[in-house]
């Protein structure tokens, strides 16, 4: 029935139940009343017929008396007086009974009184008749009168009795009519109510059976669900437990027992006994968090070790959340993770990390110190050679002068190498402070460092506006110096170098193979020159440390410059690529994240 929409099933069932009960009560009250009425009506009928009977008895008694009297009068046999004598008693008895029976009807009482009077008169008449029929006191005339009067009295009595009977009969008829009227309705009423009740009960039945079906389905799902959860706990190596804070009852999921090294339901979980599983080192921490559960009703992450029955140690991570269920009781839902594997892995990773860090530090400091300490003796060599004055050279042989010149060249080369190595080692510094810098300023500084070469080669440098970025300023300056320096160094002979520096903002999606797609935008800065260029097949190897494309006599270079550029760009999480057309020029492109 669609017109009972919003009731949830238990409410509707209750309503149906209550209504049905009411209907039943109502029905039974009707039945009861019906019964009572029946009872009443039969009583009334009885009552009426009782009166009727008594009245007839009365009549009969009087008639007996009359008959007796007549018989006696006729036969003068005393035996005929017996009924007459008894009849008086009978009359009295009947009369008393009638008085009782008509007690509720004043009219009848009146009639009764009338009747009584008549009867008395009749008996008086009887007496008189007897008297006057007695031979001793025989009086025919009086006898005839009284006999006649007696007959009239009898008729009156009969009349009165009939009247009384009629009254009773009418009374009865009326009552019966009323009962009939009442009774005729109730069966229909009862049947319709019965039908209503029946329909309600059918409705309820339908609802219950539907609910039942649903419950079965849910139950099935629940079973599957809890089965899955239990399985997932085993697979995922975690477990759950519930702590009812009001009753202090603790429930473990099956896997919780297993994680602690026991079979499910091997023991009854209790707050106090849990600490027995905890490793001595962590007992205090765990005890404290258990206290916090009670006092603060929360359980932030707590890490501790568990000792299994076989003395193995496992690492646990536990957290919990307070839940309030529908009945209002507070339950702390706790989750344990066995993180032993991750923990051990972590420890291993950490150890390896620190080894690597140490090794790195050593390498870096070795690099730095080596470059630094190598400078000293080199500087001495160069300085002492420079001390050999022209006058001294005059007195040397040509070969000696040549050798000195060669020493100077080699020393200079070594100097450049060490300087570059030192620069390279510096780009490896672990402390990297990124400061928001104006790249235009850094470019100006770089150009300043190269002023001499720029002027000497009459180079023109055209720059477009560079952005402001968070960078390591010294390193970016070095990057610019190296790139511009390279362009100047590898310019075409007799052609003034022209270097163009441009900057654009690009999306990392435009260069999916090149750029880190996690960063959306990059700044693309290109350094284009009209120098000699290089064979494009080397466009990746030129960034490799110590890779050179020319012999050192042709072009002084250490092969470190571009490696430094790459290192610097890597430090900034960017990218550098190179391309070139031999004898036309090269383009170096750097991408720096926004």
């Amino acid at each position: 029935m669609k017109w009972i929409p919003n009731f949830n099933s238990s409410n509707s069932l209750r309503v149906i139940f209550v209504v049905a009960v009411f209907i039943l009560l109502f029905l039974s009250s009707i039945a009861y009343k019906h019964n009572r009425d029946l009872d009443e009506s039969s009583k009334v009928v009885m009552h009426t017929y009782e009166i009727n009977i008594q009245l007839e008895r009365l009549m009969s008694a009087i008639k007996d008396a009359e008959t007796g009297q007549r018989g006696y009068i006729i036969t003068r046999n005393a035996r005929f007086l017996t009924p007459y004598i008894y009849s008086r008693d009978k009359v009295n008895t009947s009369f008393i009974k009638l008085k009782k029976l008509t007690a509720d009807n004043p009219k009848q009482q009146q009639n009764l009184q009338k009747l009584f009077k008549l009867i008395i008169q009749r008996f008086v008449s009887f007496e008189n008749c007897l008297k006057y029929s007695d031979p001793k006191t025989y009086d025919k005339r009086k006898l005839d009168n009284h006999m006649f009067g007696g007959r009239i009295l009898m008729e009156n009595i009969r009349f009165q009795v009939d009247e009384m009977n009629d009254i009773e009969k009418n009374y009865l008829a009326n009552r019966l009519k009323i009962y009939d009227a009442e009774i005729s309705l109730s069966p229909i009423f009862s049947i319709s109510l019965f039908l209503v009740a029946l329909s309600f009960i059918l409705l309820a039945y339908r609802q219950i059976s539907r609910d039942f079906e649903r419950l079965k389905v849910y139950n099935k799902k629940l079973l599957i669900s809890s089965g899955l959860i239990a399985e997932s706990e085993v697979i995922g190596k975690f477990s759950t437990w519930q702590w009812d804070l009001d009753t202090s009852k603790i429930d473990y999921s099956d896997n919780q027992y297993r994680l602690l090294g026991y079979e499910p339901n091997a023991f009854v979980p209790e707050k106090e006994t849990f600490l027995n599983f905890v490793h001595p080192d962590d007992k205090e921490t765990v005890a404290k968090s258990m206290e916090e559960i009670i006092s603060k009703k929360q359980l932030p992450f707590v890490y501790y070790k568990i000792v299994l029955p076989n003395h193995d140690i496992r690492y646990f991570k536990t957290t919990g959340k307070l839940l309030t269920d529908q009945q209002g009781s507070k339950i702390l839902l706790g989750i344990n993770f066995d993180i032993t594997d991750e923990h051990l892995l972590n420890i291993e990773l950490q150890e390896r990390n620190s080894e690597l860090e140490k090794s790195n530090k050593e390498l870096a400091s070795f690099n730095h110190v080596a470059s630094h300490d190598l400078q000293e003796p080199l500087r001495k060599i160069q300085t002492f050679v420079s001390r050999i004055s022209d006058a001294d050279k005059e007195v040397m042989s040509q070969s000696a002068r040549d050798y000195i010149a060669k020493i100077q060249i080699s020393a200079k080369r070594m100097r450049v190498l060490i300087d570059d190595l030192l620069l390279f080692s510096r780009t490896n510094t672990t402390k990297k402070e990124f400061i928001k810098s104006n790249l235009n300023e850094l470019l100006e500084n770089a150009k300043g460092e190269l002023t001499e070469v720029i002027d000497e080669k009459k180079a023109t440098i055209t720059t477009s506006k560079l952005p402001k970025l968070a960078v390591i300023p010294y390193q970016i300056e070095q990057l610019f110096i190296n790139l511009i320096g390279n362009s100047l160094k590898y310019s075409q002979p007799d052609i003034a170098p022209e270097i163009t520096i441009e900057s654009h903002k690009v999306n990392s999606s435009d260069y999916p193979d090149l750029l880190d797609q996690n960063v959306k935008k990059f700044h693309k800065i290109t350094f284009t020159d009209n120098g000699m260029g290089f064979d494009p097949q080397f466009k990746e190897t030129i960034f490799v440390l110590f890779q050179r494309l020319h012999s050192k006599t042709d072009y002084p270079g250490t092969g470190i410059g571009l490696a430094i550029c790459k290192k610097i760009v890597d430090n900034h999480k960017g990218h550098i690529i190179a391309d070139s057309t031999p004898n036309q020029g090269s383009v170096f492109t750097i991408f720096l994240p926004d």
Partner: protein
Amino acid sequence: MKLFIKFDINTICSLFLKHNLDQHNVNFTTLGFGEIEISDNLDANALEALKNKLSPCGFEVVENQKSVLVQKIKDAIIELVFMEDNNNYKSSVFLAEKLNHSYGYLSNVFSEVTYSSIENFIILQKIERAKQLIIINEMSLTEIAFLLNYSSVAHLSTQFKNTTGITPSAFQRIIKKRRENLK
């Protein structure tokens, strides 16, 4: 509380000289930075005593005539550089007029005595003023370049770097960090 004090060396020195010379009852008049004329003629001992009195405080009695001229040249240059409105003055003209010698002569004397040129000294003073302006921190480099008659900030930066070896911005940074260290 931090106060920036700009002090006028001239005033300080004059006061100090006055204080000292008064003690010796020497009457004098100040002719320019570092030049006083004493009314009386001091004899050698008195002059010696005066020299001894003044030298511990960093005052040197200069006796050489050429040195005196050089000192005047320097004063004039300082005046030129630190003037508020010096747009129209060409330094050679200014000096020649002010000191009543040809610029060539002044140039020679200066080089002879100091082993360095007037131009260098001018640059030195300009950069010195730039440093002061940078320290006070109320003007941008552009404004400073403009005030000191440089054609551009780049020009100022280049000269600053050539003279001191560091860029104006590096200088600013260093001064700022020095101040922070003192806190």
